């Protein structure tokens, strides 16, 4: 984990939010736009620290709300509510397994819109809901589940390509070197 990783996650979140507003093909092909922020949050929760998770929740949520008709701040808490517990309990999660990544991505992508809708309804807003919203929810869940392992692979590649790698320690120690030269004694 390093600052580069956090910056990379935030930059991706910025581009993801922008992409969701411009590339509307999923909306017209599948009837719903896929939200990539929950999948990103899963990556951040499993690979960065709680500060990065908080920054992603606040920045990503505000960016998303600024471009949508949501009240500003409505998406911040749902993102954080998903990312925070995973970040705290991540030592118990097999984060390297693609199955775990897909499962967590699906869970986050299902929970974030559900919590957002609850916040909107409790704030007196009237979002566009109906039985077909269930289909949209399924599309968002499936889309998020598919995006999570892709993000893991992408960021692993980026970290490997651009980030500093840990220096592997050699087993050679100069203080244990046996000098056989007579003059050195």
């Amino acid at each position: 984990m390093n600052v580069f990783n956090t910056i990379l996650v935030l930059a991706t979140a910025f581009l993801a939010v922008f992409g969701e507003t411009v590339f509307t093909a999923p909306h017209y092909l599948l009837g719903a736009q896929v939200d990539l922020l929950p999948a990103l949050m899963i990556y951040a929760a499993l690979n960065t620290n709680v500060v990065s998770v908080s920054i992603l929740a606040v920045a990503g949520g505000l960016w998303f709300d600024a471009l949508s008709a949501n009240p500003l701040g409505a998406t911040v808490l749902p993102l954080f509510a998903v990312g925070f517990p995973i970040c705290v309990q991540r030592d118990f999660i097999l984060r390297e397994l693609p199955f775990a990544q897909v499962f967590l991505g699906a869970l986050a992508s299902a929970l974030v819109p559900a919590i957002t809708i609850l916040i909107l309804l409790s704030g007196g807003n009237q979002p566009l809901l109906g039985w077909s919203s269930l289909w949209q929810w399924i599309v968002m869940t499936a889309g998020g589940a598919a995006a999570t392992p892709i993000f893991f692979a992408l960021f692993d590649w980026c970290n490997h390509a651009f980030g500093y790698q840990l220096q592997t320690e050699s087993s050679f120690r100069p203080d244990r070197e046996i000098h056989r030269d007579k003059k050195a004694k």
Partner: protein
Amino acid sequence: MFKRKNYFALGSVVLVTLAILSLPPRVTSRLKLAVGSLFLPLFGLANTAQQLPVTAADAILSRRELIQQNESLRRENQQLKFLQMQTSATMRENNQLRSAIGWQKQTPWKLKLANVVLRDPANWWRTAQIDLGSRDGLRENLPVLTNDGLIGRVSSVGLTRSQIILIGDPNCRVSARVENPTHDIGVLGAGGPLDDSLVGLSYLSSGANLKSGQLVVTSGEGGIFPAGIPIGQIVDAQQVEFGLYTEARVKLNANLGALEEVWVLFP
């Protein structure tokens, strides 16, 4: 396991969210536009990328094709000029008759062309943003239409961009009149989350004489939308609330899924 840093992060995010959510609407709206303006460079890039294929296509058009297009546009322009002359004459006559019976004079619509720059990323709203703002004279609640008919109204205005609420969003209600002998008036409300071409027309009188294919236009009541803007056509109707009133489904004339250029109407 639960370190002090975690408590601090949890408390900070909750506090920040509650503070933002409890801000007055005017401040929130300005904050939203400020945060949204961070995306302006990307919108510029996206716009340029969209224009590139058009420019490339223009560059490879043959001279003969251009001359043909020019000729057909010239003919269309002449026809439109004749039509405009006719319309102007009808309008003059209409205004004379209106003044004769003491009605308010009708002023012609002023329209401004805008490009749709983005769609709402949330699936539970039906909004879009256009590239005109307060510096272009836009203000809240101005009607927005395409060549096919009404699509919504301006909901919030920034310096260079504005948000429009499309028909079918629960926050966009339009008083609409059915073009039938009884001129039934109802309220155009929310549509379904999936199909954005159908919206509900409710609060029509229980004896409304509705038939499939009848035209629906704005009634002019409500003070936002001028009368007579085409909206769509009746698809079907049914009595609701034990026959208290009639509800109909309206197929919109405008395709909300393919909005690129829209007109903002200054009544």
